[in-house]
């Protein structure tokens, strides 16, 4: 096999369990070397608000600030730390538009989301212009192969992309989402998970949650991101 990230050919070694049990063989599209560069977050060491890796338990400084504005925090769970390798991955996946990379984390995410059952999984949408340029929604690409997605949000175009702003500008961003009322109605009373690719400041996810709660007040919402 050829690694999707480093283009080196590699051989996936089988474990004893792979041989003995009759089960579908999960093949990883990236090699072990590349996989090691991503830092997986231990759930015990994560901030209970945003899911970031920290040395102590409890809320991190950012979440304490958020708590003043939103007493009910997101309880975000993230799979990986946003390090250099992750940044490189997103650059190639989102900026260059290499859609094949959406398969990189399918199996790890599958195991991860299995532990968090929910009635529906709602991805953060992209605006129409970005979708046309890229040809895909990056969040749906990553999570679409893992769980069935329920798209009920729309996003209007931002004049400046979140990625091009600094922290305070990002935090000042106005609500970009609109709920699709027809699609939201069946969600009443359900437990859903909002999915996004990266949690940076939390602004996007709080906006999305606000928007959904305004449309369907009885929703229970938690969030999951690939990176924090």
């Amino acid at each position, binding site marked *: 096999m050829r690694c999707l990230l480093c283009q080196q050919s590699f051989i996936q070694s089988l474990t004893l369990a792979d041989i003995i049990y009759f089960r579908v063989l999960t093949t990883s599209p990236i090699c072990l070397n590349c996989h090691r560069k991503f830092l997986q977050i231990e759930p015990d060491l994560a901030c209970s608000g945003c899911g970031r890796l920290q040395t102590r338990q409890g809320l991190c400084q950012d979440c304490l600030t958020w708590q003043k504005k939103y007493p009910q925090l997101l309880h975000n769970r993230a799979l990986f730390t946003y390090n250099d390798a992750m940044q490189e991955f997103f650059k190639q996946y989102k900026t*260059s538009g290499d*859609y094949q990379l959406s398969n990189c984390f399918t199996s790890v995410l599958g195991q991860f989301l299995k532990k968090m059952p929910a009635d529906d999984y709602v991805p953060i949408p992209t605006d129409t212009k970005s979708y*046309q340029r*890229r*040809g895909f929604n990056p969040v*749906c*690409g990553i999570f679409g192969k893992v769980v069935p997605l329920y798209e009920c949000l729309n996003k209007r175009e931002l004049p400046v992309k979140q990625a091009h702003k600094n922290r305070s500008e990002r935090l000042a961003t106005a609500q970009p989402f609109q709920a699709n009322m027809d699609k939201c109605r069946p969600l009443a009373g359900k437990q859903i998970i909002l999915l996004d690719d990266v949690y940076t400041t939390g602004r996007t996810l709080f906006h999305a949650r606000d928007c959904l709660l305004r449309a369907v007040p009885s929703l229970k919402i938690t969030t999951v991101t690939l990176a924090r």
Partner: protein
Amino acid sequence: MNCEALFGRLEIVDQTTSKTWQDLFPGLIVQPAMSLTNTVVTCRRCQARYSKKSVQLPSGTYYCPTCLLLGRVCSNEYLVSLPEKNHFTGPTELTWRGTLTPAQTEAAEMIKQIFKQHRQHLLWAVTGAGKTEMLFPGLFAALSQGKRVAIASPRIDVCLELLPRLQQAFAQTEIMLLYGDQPEPYHYTQFVLCTTHQLLRFYQAFDVLVIDEVDAFPFAQDQQLHFAVQQARKTISACLYLTATPGPALLQQVRKGVLGLSYLPRRYHGHPLALPHRHLALNWYKQLRKGRLPSVLNRLLKDKVQRQQSFLLFVPKIALLKPLAQLLSNNFANLKFTTVYAADPKRAEKVQAMRQEKLTALLTTTILERGVTFKNIEVIVLGSDDSVFTTSALVQMAGRVGRHRDYPTGRVDFICAGYSCAMKQATKQIKQINQKAGF
């Protein structure tokens, strides 16, 4: 958009832009970016073929993952370019002040003729023959006739080393350097220096195309890059391949008569190439794993340290660098050395330190096999029978030795656990070349 920036250059545009550009620039060549059959898509830029299913985007279009780093090609887009018009004035003077040896002059004259007669040619010149300088008269003649010229190499290090030398020789001509992460945007120049991948972005642009180090990775193995060369040159144009170690594919083309061939077997200072000494050390790897220096290596290193001789120590794997460095610092406390590998962030600085003789030794992988010149250097290859050391890699590594006029000789040692085919061929090739040079 300036029309000059499209001369011989392939740009990717969507349908609406291609329509407006067709009105704006008469004579615009427009072709769909990908060709589709029932099951397969082919990228028109790099000729990569994929099954439709594997490269489909959710929006329904297809894209090419192979040449993604040059900007994504999508099936709903178009490749456009304008025919090369050669809008150049050309230099009036060659600003190079060196001199060529008689053998070099002869070769330079031949290169001039190749460029003039638009021939395809392979120049087999030994490592350290002074290939770049030999190109100057020919390049100058072509440039002054208003021809568009490109020098491409598979290695970015080679390009970066060539640039100042070329700029000095052609001070009147602007040279555009193109490579993967370069900050400067493309603009139209008569002289282009680029990595071979960048040639995919040109379409019938060059009258003279020189490929340096043809046998280097990834050019030799990559069919896509051979296509890039054919695509980037004009239908009537000269193409010159330079190498010290031609592979079987090139030599076959010579036998078929597609390529002309000439040798330059003598180094510019007239000394023969150093012949490698082979040392059999059956369990060098085991010894290294146990934390002992293989005895052959120990003996060689002691000798070098005694003579205060600087040297390069090549290893087949990056993973070997660390334990070996540890052993070396334990056994030879006074030896000033460091390790360097491809992804090393301080790679350029370390090589520079070695050049300035601040270091006595470098432990390295195959990345330093070519394109680098140190004044007074000897070479040891540990595990030379490993499959990463191909014939050309071994010849190139041996060719690091004795490149300078003042230090024309030196030792090359191969330490191996068995003789590989590549090693035998490398020794044979070096012997052959020395014989051709009359030694």
